[in-house]
């Protein structure tokens, strides 16, 4: 089943390139996504042993991230049916094929227990998504695609160097001499500490670039701003989560080797920096899709802070992965609808979205509330857990900064969102042919309801999963 979940999207993606009909090609997305969800559900109910010499295995941390992305991908696939029908003037061969390959690659990242396989899969996610950013075929999206490709490739090359350092740290005569996660963790104290430390730096820079942590986030506003909303949802709610998972794997090894304190401090610093930067740049943002990109930077910062705090905050981090994935899905899909309806992303041109798009407009507002951590939505609880962790581990300054940045972001983002959603849409530019339909407004609505439900009632099974995932990291 593990192989099924990876190979099915891959095969469907390859066949998408060969599929001749532009109008029916998006169905492949739906088929691939549905089969993927079925596979993941089956892996929940019937857990499998590691396959392929232990290279692939779905452990607790991987389960959280892969399941989130599977649900998000399903919602996006349904959305894509409506979206691609609306954009039927464009050839969607690369788009559909690329998305399916992305799904396969992301799943591989989630299941990888070998750091080399992890790296290859992350590389493939970059290469698969770069052409997709260029879907709109204009100068800005080309610029965004180039910056994304170059910066991500740079980061991944540095991550490869870090992986080599890690392999070298275990290359001594009594070392594990392997890149398998379990081997490295078990042989933790025997790893050469200077090399582990150097490895962590490079791996944090490399995978942090993919996550979009400051100061390595420069590609995010451009890429998320120019990509179609659907792709933005998968980038912000999918790939960044998998990059986070990669950092988690690295942290597991680094902690086992005794360099955990250094690693956590670095993560804490970068996390707080990301939140601060997001807070600064969110204010007065003139493009609501770029605003969402900075929101993504902020949430990756929150995840990094949680990892850096350790202890109970890490459970909150995994809970936040689920919340962030789903709520980013809502925001980007709704933003995509608003963009289509107005033909513009600029906040000085778009207003009154609640009137023109009776579902997507309010969803954008509700999503904003969720994303900034307003109760009773899910993210409130996960951020609360992280805050609790900060105070619990005796770091009041971190807690205070955390709250401060969240507050500033709420104000900054709120001004933009309220301006876009409220008011009258008289005189705003527009695309009268685009209205909310079940295919384009349904998925974000369902995702929003899920975010709300997670906030009101969290199944104990899920909480158990988050705790299990956190135990992998903290080692307790």
């Amino acid at each position: 089943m593990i192989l099924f979940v990876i190979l099915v999207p891959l095969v469907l993606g390859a066949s998408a390139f060969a599929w001749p009909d532009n109008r029916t090609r998006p169905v492949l997305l739906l088929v691939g996504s549905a089969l993927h969800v079925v596979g993941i559900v089956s892996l929940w109910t019937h857990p499998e042993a590691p396959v392929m010499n232990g290279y692939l295995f779905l452990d607790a941390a991987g389960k959280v991230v892969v399941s989130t992305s599977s649900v998000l991908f399903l919602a996006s696939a349904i959305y894509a049916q409506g979206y691609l029908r609306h954009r039927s003037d464009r050839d969607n061969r690369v788009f559909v094929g690329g998305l399916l390959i992305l799904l396969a690659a992301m799943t591989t990242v989630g299941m990888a227990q070998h750091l080399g396989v992890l790296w290859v899969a992350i590389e493939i996610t970059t290469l698969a998504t770069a052409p997709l950013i260029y879907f709109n075929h204009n100068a800005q999206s080309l610029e965004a695609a180039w910056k994304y490709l170059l910066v991500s490739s740079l980061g991944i090359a540095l991550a490869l160097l870090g992986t080599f350092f890690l392999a070298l740290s275990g290359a001594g005569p009594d070392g594990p001499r392997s890149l398998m996660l379990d081997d490295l963790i078990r042989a933790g104290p025997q790893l050469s500490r200077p090399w582990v430390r150097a490895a962590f730096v490079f791996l944090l820079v490399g995978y942090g670039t993919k996550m979009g942590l400051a100061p390595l986030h420069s590609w995010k506003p451009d890429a998320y701003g120019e990509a179609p909303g659907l792709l933005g949802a998968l980038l912000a709610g999918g790939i960044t989560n998998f990059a986070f998972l990669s950092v988690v794997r690295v942290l597991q090894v680094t902690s086992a080797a005794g360099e955990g304190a250094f690693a956590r401090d670095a993560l804490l610093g970068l996390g707080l920096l990301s939140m601060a930067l997001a807070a600064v740049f969110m204010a007065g943002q003139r493009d609501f899709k770029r605003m969402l990109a900075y929101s993504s930077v902020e949430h990756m910062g929150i995840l990094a802070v949680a990892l850096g705090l350790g202890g109970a905050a890490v459970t909150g981090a995994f809970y936040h992965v689920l919340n962030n994935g789903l709520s980013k899905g809502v925001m980007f899909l709704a933003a995509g609808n608003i963009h289509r309806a107005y033909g513009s992303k600029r906040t000085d041109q778009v207003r009154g979205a609640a009137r023109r798009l009776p579902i997507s407009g309010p969803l954008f507002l509700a999503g904003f509330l969720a994303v900034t951590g307003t109760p009773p939505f899910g993210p409130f609880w996960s951020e609360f857990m992280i805050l609790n962790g900060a105070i619990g581990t005796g770091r009041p300054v971190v807690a205070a900064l955390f709250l401060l940045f969240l507050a500033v972001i709420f104000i900054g983002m709120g001004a933009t969102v309220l301006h876009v959603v409220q008011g009258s849409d008289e005189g705003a530019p527009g695309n009268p042919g685009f209205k909310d339909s079940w295919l384009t407004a349904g998925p974000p609505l369902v995702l929003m309801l899920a975010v709300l439900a997670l906030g009101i009632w969290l199944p104990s099974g899920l909480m158990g999963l988050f705790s299990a995932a956190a135990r992998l990291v903290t080692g307790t």
Partner: protein
Amino acid sequence: MGAWTDMAFILVVVLDLFLLASSRLGAAIRAVALQGALLSLLALLLTSSGHSLGHMLVVAGGAFFIKAILIPWLMFRAIREMAIRREMEPLVGYVPSMILGGVGVVLSFAFSRGLPLPTHEMHPFLVPTALATVWTGLLLVVSRRKAVTQVLGFLVLENGVFVFGLLLTDFMPVMVEAGVLLDLLAAVFVMGIVMFQINREFASLDTDALSSLKD
């Protein structure tokens, strides 16, 4: 054999410095191709035990084909199609770039003495050369304006990572190097496609034109 290996490593670093100074794209591409060829040669020279010689031949052959033949050919086609031959004055000027590169070389040699190798040392120049080449690649990507030179910088960075990967050939020979080569090929392929599009859209490969998106 030892002297040839020494000279190969030194030549890799000299090529790094040359790349930082060069403004002619054709010369730069040839230098990167030569560096790739040197690296495949080094892969062969550094093989210690006999049984992995078969693997190393494959890796060295693959590295030579991809780094010294295929990718330079793609790059030459790119610059011929776009009719560009010279880099423009980069963000960090040539002389400061060279000096920064020189500083990088010095620091690489200094740092590599502080990092003791857990395995037996294959060659004392290996780690410093790898680090210096990675540093050069980073400098090139960050400071140059033309997209082609940025891609060349990425290639140089990968060369540095490849050199480092040679250290691991004892216990994970093929996977490591195959990963690097795969990454290189795929990345350059996709970058090439994007570059063609950039040239079509902007009628130039000057990345100054790619600066309309900002806050």
